[in-house]
């Protein structure tokens, strides 16, 4: 039980909008920063694609670029998308907004720690921005930062840019460590009366799993990053063979974190889709407990698959088979979740509202990405496709599904609750279809060109005679990418439209059963009125036989029948 003594406090501008401890405001601060970085990351991708399609032509707003600058584009695109777009939006914004509302709490258990975490993230963002402006430019050793290239400034020509990259990531890690601790402790401590763990919505379970994965996997990389920084600044030899070190150590430490990290990005998005599908099928989620079990199994397995990123690194070949086995195993729990999603839809009363479109887009695109994962995860096949665009296709089909399709499912679904306005329906449909089409135009050709031998991180494919006949695939992908960027314009217009002329959102526009819909749209400070709700059932009671309505809210008291 929670005791909350609410006092009416006057908040000025600064404590309401800038230095707020309210989880909903902090969520919006994360969202705003994430959207800013989406623009930066997307433009970097546009520049990359332009260079790849037309290598000897100047890029608009940039001029002609050489391989070193291209390396910077590649590096910062990856770093920004994973750490400054996916994490702040999926975890920072949605985790913060949803967790207290979905469990019936008034705020996170540590509101000031929450504020510290979003401000630490802002500092991390500033450091990353600064890295673009220092002499030598921003980091250019790949988002994976492999030594020896990353260990000595002379190898990349980038001095402070890479040091700031390391520092910026360290701050980002600190921000999400704080956030993760807050999320986990909040769900353990602040659930409303009746909100047992098995009544907590799957979106919250996925946030917890992601937070746990991050908390337990980032440590070795922090150690490794300290070692890299010292190699760069104090000439230590952690990663230099002639000084007694080994570059392979970095790869192990990086991917020990790097693999759980991709699930840190994926799981929250899975959570959003798992919330949306039941609502727009008017059916309970299929296999709620088994989905939680599968998530836990996948999370545990994610710690023992990492070397599938290293099959061609020169590591001991005896590691290839065990890591291939564990990688194939990890497809099983995720396959279960996908089947559960399909089973939820089966014979449901499907409504094709915009959030549902995005959720279905996630499901289909993620299946494609997951299938290519099987090839990448088997060492013999991976020997051929590793470091090619086949891998780029794989991780864009999976990550893009999560961040964009899953992310927009969440945005369109919860926008009314967050901002108290509805988004424009037709624009939302346009946004979805254009994104779906141009996403595939951009990334599907990469399977082909990867198999044809185009390796990653090269600035000019035409320097390889074997790739010249396949260059049309690069051009096609670039047109797709530019159109994909343009396809986001309907979304921007929709936001503006909503702000200027949008309908006020009702409390529960989707007739959804989970607890956040019991609060007003948007919820006031401290979320609930004089007392927090009491919970009587799980979050997915749709089309219950014998009930008049096709949904039962979690906080609706059962009617006593004589």
């Amino acid at each position, binding site marked *: *039980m929670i005791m909350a003594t609410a006092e009416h*406090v006057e908040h000025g501008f600064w404590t309401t909008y800038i230095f707020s401890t309210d989880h909903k405001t902090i969520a919006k601060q994360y969202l705003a920063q994430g959207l800013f970085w989406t623009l930066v990351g997307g433009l970097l991708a546009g520049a990359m694609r332009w260079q790849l399609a037309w290598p000897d032509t100047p890029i608009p707003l940039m001029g002609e670029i050489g391989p070193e600058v291209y390396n910077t584009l590649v590096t910062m695109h990856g770093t920004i998308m994973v750490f400054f777009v996916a994490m702040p939006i999926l975890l920072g914004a949605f985790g913060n907004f949803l967790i207290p509302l979905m469990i019936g709490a008034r705020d996170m258990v540590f509101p000031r720690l929450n504020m510290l975490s979003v401000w630490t993230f802002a500092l991390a963002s500033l450091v990353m921005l600064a890295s673009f402006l220092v002499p030598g430019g921003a980091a250019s050793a790949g988002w994976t930062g492999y030594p020896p290239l990353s260990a000595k400034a002379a190898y990349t020509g980038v001095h402070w840019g890479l040091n700031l990259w390391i520092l910026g990531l360290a701050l980002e890690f600190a921000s999400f460590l704080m956030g993760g601790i807050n999320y986990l402790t909040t769900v353990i401590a602040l659930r409303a009366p009746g909100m047992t763990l098995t009544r907590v919505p799957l979106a919250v379970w996925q946030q917890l799993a992601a937070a746990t994965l991050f908390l337990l996997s980032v440590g070795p990389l922090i150690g490794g990053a300290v070692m890299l920084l010292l190699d760069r600044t104090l000439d230590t030899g952690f990663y230099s063979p002639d000084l007694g070190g080994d570059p392979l*150590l970095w790869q192990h430490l990086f991917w020990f974190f790097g693999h759980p990290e991709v699930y840190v990005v994926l799981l929250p998005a899975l959570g959003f889709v798992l919330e949306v599908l039941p609502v727009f099928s008017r059916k309970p989620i299929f296999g709620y407990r088994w989905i939680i079990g599968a998530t836990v199994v996948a999370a545990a397995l994610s710690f023992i698959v990492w070397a599938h990123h290293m099959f061609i690194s020169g590591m001991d070949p005896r590691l290839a088979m065990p890591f291939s086995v564990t990688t194939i195993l990890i497809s099983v729990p995720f396959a279960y979740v996908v089947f559960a999603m399909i089973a939820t839809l089966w014979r449901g009363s499907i409504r094709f509202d915009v959030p549902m479109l995005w959720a279905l887009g996630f499901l289909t695109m993620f299946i494609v990405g997951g299938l290519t994962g099987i090839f990448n995860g088997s060492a013999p096949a991976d020997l051929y496709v590793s470091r090619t665009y086949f891998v780029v296709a794989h991780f864009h089909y999976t990550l893009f599904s999560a961040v964009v399709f899953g992310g927009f499912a969440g945005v369109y679904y919860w926008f009314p609750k967050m901002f108290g306005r509805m988004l424009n329906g037709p624009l939302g449909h346009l946004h979805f279809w254009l994104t779906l089409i141009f996403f595939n135009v951009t990334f599907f050709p990469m399977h082909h060109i990867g198999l044809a031998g185009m390796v990653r991180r090269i600035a000019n494919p035409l320097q390889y005679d074997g790739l010249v006949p396949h260059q049309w695939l690069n051009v096609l992908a670039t047109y797709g990418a530019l159109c994909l960027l343009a396809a986001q314009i309907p979304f921007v217009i929709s936001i503006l439209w909503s702000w200027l002329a949008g309908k006020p959102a009702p409390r529960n526009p989707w007739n959804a059963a989970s607890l956040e819909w019991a609060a007003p749209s948007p919820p006031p400070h401290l979320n609930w009125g004089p007392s927090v709700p009491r919970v009587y059932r799980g979050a997915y009671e749709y089309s219950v036989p014998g009930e008049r309505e096709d949904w039962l809210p979690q906080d609706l008291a059962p009617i006593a029948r004589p």
Partner: protein
Amino acid sequence: MMAHLEAEGIPGGITAGKVAVWWFLASEIMVFGGLITSYIVFRLGGSGWAEASHHLSMTLAATNTLVLLTSSYTIVQAFVAAERGGATALRMYLGLTILGGLIFLGIKAVEYTTEIRAGFTPDAGIFWSFYYTMTGLHALHVLGGIVVNGVVLVTEGRGVKNPHRVELAGLYWHFVDVVWIFLFPLLYLA
């Protein structure tokens, strides 16, 4: 001042603050554990490490180990005092803990100065790279703990309002101690 949120407790009688600190410590286990694991595998696979470690002062490090273990003892006594509401005893024990931390850092400073003057800089060899990184990161954590203990001393030393804070500060301090319990033999004794 914002509304006061009180978590009454979670099954098991444990508080939210304690859950949070333990989650934090779990992540810290991975940080130091990653470094220590790397050190161990490198050392097992390399040569010349034992000779390099002979240049370290085992006496100073053993002293530091005794100091840090004693400071763990004093901070747990500080918690006992806090539970009883004894502000004077609390101030004494927390003060001793902070003093222990400062002595630890002082001795480390002496060590570093001696070693660097003898030419054993971080880039003098892979053993030294690991030595400075591990003990340096540890020393930063000791410094952080001193600051935390100082804050608790200020807020609880005038009259004990929240003994729980002393316990939480103690948990962090003990963790820093446990890391050193392993660093000492790994670097100095083996």
